[in-house]
Protein backbone atom coordinates (compact mmCIF):
# COMPACT_ATOMS: atom_id res chain seq x y z
CA UNK A 1 0.00 0.00 0.00
CA UNK A 2 1.91 3.06 -1.25
CA UNK A 3 -0.37 5.75 0.25
CA UNK A 4 0.40 9.17 -1.24
CA UNK A 5 3.17 9.28 -3.83
CA UNK A 6 4.77 12.49 -5.05
CA UNK A 7 7.21 12.96 -7.90
CA UNK A 8 9.78 14.33 -8.35
CA UNK A 9 11.44 14.49 -4.94
CA UNK A 10 13.83 17.23 -6.01
CA UNK A 11 13.86 19.67 -8.91
CA UNK A 12 15.76 22.76 -9.91
CA UNK A 13 14.05 25.15 -12.31
CA UNK A 14 15.11 28.29 -14.05
CA UNK A 15 12.98 31.41 -13.78
CA UNK A 16 10.14 31.25 -16.27
CA UNK A 17 10.20 27.50 -16.76
CA UNK A 18 7.12 25.37 -16.21
CA UNK A 19 6.70 22.05 -14.50
CA UNK A 20 4.15 19.72 -12.97
CA UNK A 21 4.41 18.08 -9.57
CA UNK A 22 2.67 14.75 -9.67
CA UNK A 23 0.62 13.33 -6.81
CA UNK A 24 -1.26 10.07 -6.71
CA UNK A 25 -2.96 8.18 -3.88
CA UNK A 26 -4.22 4.63 -3.71
CA UNK A 27 -6.51 4.95 -0.69
CA UNK A 28 -9.62 5.98 -2.62
CA UNK A 29 -9.72 9.30 -0.75
CA UNK A 30 -11.97 11.96 -2.16
CA UNK A 31 -10.15 14.89 -0.55
CA UNK A 32 -6.73 15.93 -1.79
CA UNK A 33 -4.55 18.94 -1.00
CA UNK A 34 -1.40 20.73 -1.99
CA UNK A 35 0.59 22.59 0.64
CA UNK A 36 3.85 24.45 0.46
CA UNK A 37 6.31 24.92 3.30
CA UNK A 38 8.83 27.71 3.31
CA UNK A 39 11.80 27.54 5.71
CA UNK A 40 10.77 28.18 9.31
CA UNK A 41 7.13 28.46 8.37
CA UNK A 42 4.09 26.27 8.64
CA UNK A 43 2.41 24.54 5.75
CA UNK A 44 0.23 26.81 3.64
CA UNK A 45 -2.63 25.48 1.56
CA UNK A 46 -2.29 26.12 -2.18
CA UNK A 47 -5.23 24.22 -3.66
CA UNK A 48 -7.55 21.46 -2.60
CA UNK A 49 -10.07 19.13 -4.16
CA UNK A 50 -13.13 17.46 -2.66
CA UNK A 51 -13.52 15.00 -5.50
CA UNK A 52 -12.83 14.30 -9.15
CA UNK A 53 -13.64 17.34 -11.26
CA UNK A 54 -13.83 19.72 -8.27
CA UNK A 55 -10.97 21.99 -7.18
CA UNK A 56 -10.75 25.18 -5.19
CA UNK A 57 -8.18 27.72 -4.08
CA UNK A 58 -6.48 27.70 -0.73
CA UNK A 59 -4.51 30.50 0.92
CA UNK A 60 -1.70 30.89 -1.63
CA UNK A 61 -2.94 29.83 -5.11
CA UNK A 62 -1.23 32.50 -7.23
CA UNK A 63 1.22 31.06 -9.74
CA UNK A 64 -0.24 27.55 -9.56
CA UNK A 65 -2.90 25.49 -11.26
CA UNK A 66 -4.40 22.11 -10.49
CA UNK A 67 -6.68 19.58 -12.07
CA UNK A 68 -8.47 16.50 -10.74
CA UNK A 69 -9.58 14.25 -13.55
CA UNK A 70 -9.49 11.08 -11.45
CA UNK A 71 -9.88 10.24 -7.77
CA UNK A 72 -6.26 9.06 -7.62
CA UNK A 73 -4.37 11.95 -9.21
CA UNK A 74 -3.98 15.61 -8.26
CA UNK A 75 -1.14 17.26 -10.21
CA UNK A 76 0.10 20.76 -9.38
CA UNK A 77 1.26 22.92 -12.27
CA UNK A 78 3.68 25.83 -12.07
CA UNK A 79 3.40 27.84 -15.28
CA UNK A 80 6.11 30.51 -14.98
CA UNK A 81 8.44 29.60 -12.15
CA UNK A 82 9.61 32.42 -9.89
CA UNK A 83 12.19 32.42 -7.07
CA UNK A 84 9.32 32.97 -4.60
CA UNK A 85 8.11 29.48 -5.46
CA UNK A 86 11.24 27.90 -4.02
CA UNK A 87 9.75 25.69 -1.33
CA UNK A 88 8.95 22.18 -0.23
CA UNK A 89 5.62 20.99 -1.61
CA UNK A 90 3.46 18.43 0.12
CA UNK A 91 0.53 16.58 -1.33
CA UNK A 92 -1.99 15.05 1.06
CA UNK A 93 -5.26 13.21 0.98
CA UNK A 94 -8.01 12.46 3.46
CA UNK A 95 -11.09 10.36 3.91
CA UNK A 96 -14.36 12.11 3.18
CA UNK A 97 -16.29 10.51 6.01
CA UNK A 98 -17.26 11.98 9.32
CA UNK A 99 -13.84 11.66 10.89
CA UNK A 100 -11.88 14.79 10.16
CA UNK A 101 -8.32 15.88 10.54
CA UNK A 102 -6.29 12.88 9.50
CA UNK A 103 -4.41 13.89 6.42
CA UNK A 104 -2.08 11.41 4.78
CA UNK A 105 0.99 13.10 3.38
CA UNK A 106 3.44 12.38 0.64
CA UNK A 107 7.16 12.62 1.25
CA UNK A 108 7.41 16.10 -0.21
CA UNK A 109 8.98 17.63 -3.30
CA UNK A 110 11.79 20.15 -2.86
CA UNK A 111 11.72 22.75 -5.61
CA UNK A 112 14.39 25.38 -6.18
CA UNK A 113 13.89 28.19 -8.69
CA UNK A 114 17.06 29.98 -9.77
Amino acid at each position, binding site marked *: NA*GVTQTPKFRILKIGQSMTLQCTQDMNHN*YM*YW*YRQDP*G*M*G*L*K*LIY*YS*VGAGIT*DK*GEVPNGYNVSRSTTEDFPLRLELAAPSQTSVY*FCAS*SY*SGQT*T*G*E*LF*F*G*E*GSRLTVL
Partner: protein
Amino acid sequence: AQRVTQPEKLLSVFKGAPVELKCNYSYSGSPELFWYVQYSRQRLQLLLRHISRESIKGFTADLNKGETSFHLKKPFAQEEDSAMYYCALSGVTGRRALTFGSGTRLQVQP
Protein backbone atom coordinates in the same frame (compact mmCIF):
# COMPACT_ATOMS: atom_id res chain seq x y z
CA ALA B 1 -9.24 34.30 9.91
CA GLN B 2 -7.89 31.22 11.59
CA ARG B 3 -4.38 31.09 12.86
CA VAL B 4 -2.12 28.70 14.77
CA THR B 5 0.89 29.92 16.73
CA GLN B 6 3.70 27.76 18.04
CA PRO B 7 5.98 30.20 19.86
CA GLU B 8 9.01 27.93 20.21
CA LYS B 9 11.06 26.89 17.20
CA LEU B 10 13.22 24.58 19.29
CA LEU B 11 12.69 22.83 22.59
CA SER B 12 15.58 20.89 24.04
CA VAL B 13 15.13 18.64 27.09
CA PHE B 14 16.92 15.75 28.72
CA LYS B 15 15.63 12.22 28.63
CA GLY B 16 13.13 11.68 31.43
CA ALA B 17 12.23 15.36 31.74
CA PRO B 18 8.67 16.60 31.20
CA VAL B 19 7.80 18.12 27.85
CA GLU B 20 5.29 20.79 26.95
CA LEU B 21 4.98 22.01 23.37
CA LYS B 22 2.90 25.15 23.20
CA CYS B 23 0.14 25.85 20.72
CA ASN B 24 -2.26 28.77 20.64
CA TYR B 25 -4.95 29.31 18.08
CA SER B 26 -7.23 32.01 16.80
CA TYR B 27 -10.63 31.02 15.48
CA SER B 28 -14.08 32.44 16.07
CA GLY B 29 -16.04 29.19 15.89
CA SER B 30 -15.56 25.74 17.39
CA PRO B 31 -12.24 24.44 16.15
CA GLU B 32 -10.90 20.96 15.88
CA LEU B 33 -7.28 20.77 16.94
CA PHE B 34 -4.61 18.26 16.04
CA TRP B 35 -0.98 17.52 16.60
CA TYR B 36 1.09 16.18 13.72
CA VAL B 37 4.63 14.83 13.99
CA GLN B 38 7.45 14.37 11.53
CA TYR B 39 10.26 12.05 12.59
CA SER B 40 13.57 12.18 10.78
CA ARG B 41 13.23 10.86 7.22
CA GLN B 42 9.55 10.06 7.70
CA ARG B 43 6.35 11.63 6.46
CA LEU B 44 4.25 14.05 8.39
CA GLN B 45 1.69 11.99 10.31
CA LEU B 46 -1.14 12.52 12.74
CA LEU B 47 -0.17 12.15 16.39
CA LEU B 48 -3.44 12.95 18.11
CA ARG B 49 -6.65 14.94 17.86
CA HIS B 50 -8.49 16.70 20.63
CA ILE B 51 -11.87 15.10 20.02
CA SER B 52 -10.45 11.66 20.72
CA ARG B 53 -9.06 12.64 24.13
CA GLU B 54 -6.50 9.92 23.67
CA SER B 55 -2.93 9.43 24.76
CA ILE B 56 -0.57 8.45 21.98
CA LYS B 57 3.03 7.44 22.74
CA GLY B 58 2.53 8.99 26.17
CA PHE B 59 1.52 12.38 24.75
CA THR B 60 -1.68 14.15 25.70
CA ALA B 61 -3.17 17.49 24.72
CA ASP B 62 -6.13 19.30 26.24
CA LEU B 63 -8.11 21.91 24.41
CA ASN B 64 -8.50 25.01 26.57
CA LYS B 65 -11.06 27.21 24.88
CA GLY B 66 -10.70 29.97 27.46
CA GLU B 67 -6.98 30.34 26.76
CA THR B 68 -7.36 29.22 23.11
CA SER B 69 -4.56 26.73 23.63
CA PHE B 70 -3.84 23.11 22.79
CA HIS B 71 -0.49 22.36 24.40
CA LEU B 72 1.11 18.96 23.89
CA LYS B 73 2.49 17.30 27.01
CA LYS B 74 4.44 14.26 28.01
CA PRO B 75 5.59 13.56 31.56
CA PHE B 76 8.84 11.77 30.68
CA ALA B 77 10.55 12.47 27.36
CA GLN B 78 12.27 9.69 25.44
CA GLU B 79 15.02 10.06 22.86
CA GLU B 80 12.72 8.64 20.19
CA ASP B 81 10.39 11.61 20.74
CA SER B 82 12.87 13.85 18.96
CA ALA B 83 11.02 15.21 15.92
CA MET B 84 9.22 18.20 14.44
CA TYR B 85 5.79 18.76 15.95
CA TYR B 86 3.06 20.76 14.23
CA CYS B 87 -0.15 21.97 15.76
CA ALA B 88 -3.03 22.21 13.29
CA LEU B 89 -6.57 23.52 13.26
CA SER B 90 -9.57 22.57 11.21
CA GLY B 91 -12.13 25.33 11.18
CA VAL B 92 -13.53 25.71 7.71
CA THR B 93 -16.25 23.15 7.23
CA GLY B 94 -16.58 21.38 3.93
CA ARG B 95 -13.00 21.42 2.77
CA ARG B 96 -11.33 19.62 5.70
CA ALA B 97 -8.02 21.31 5.05
CA LEU B 98 -5.88 22.16 8.04
CA THR B 99 -4.17 25.36 9.11
CA PHE B 100 -0.74 24.53 10.49
CA GLY B 101 1.53 26.26 12.94
CA SER B 102 5.18 26.79 12.06
CA GLY B 103 6.31 23.81 14.08
CA THR B 104 8.52 23.12 17.09
CA ARG B 105 11.57 20.93 16.92
CA LEU B 106 11.86 18.76 20.01
CA GLN B 107 15.34 17.51 20.87
CA VAL B 108 15.59 14.96 23.63
CA GLN B 109 19.14 14.60 24.82
CA PRO B 110 20.44 11.45 26.51
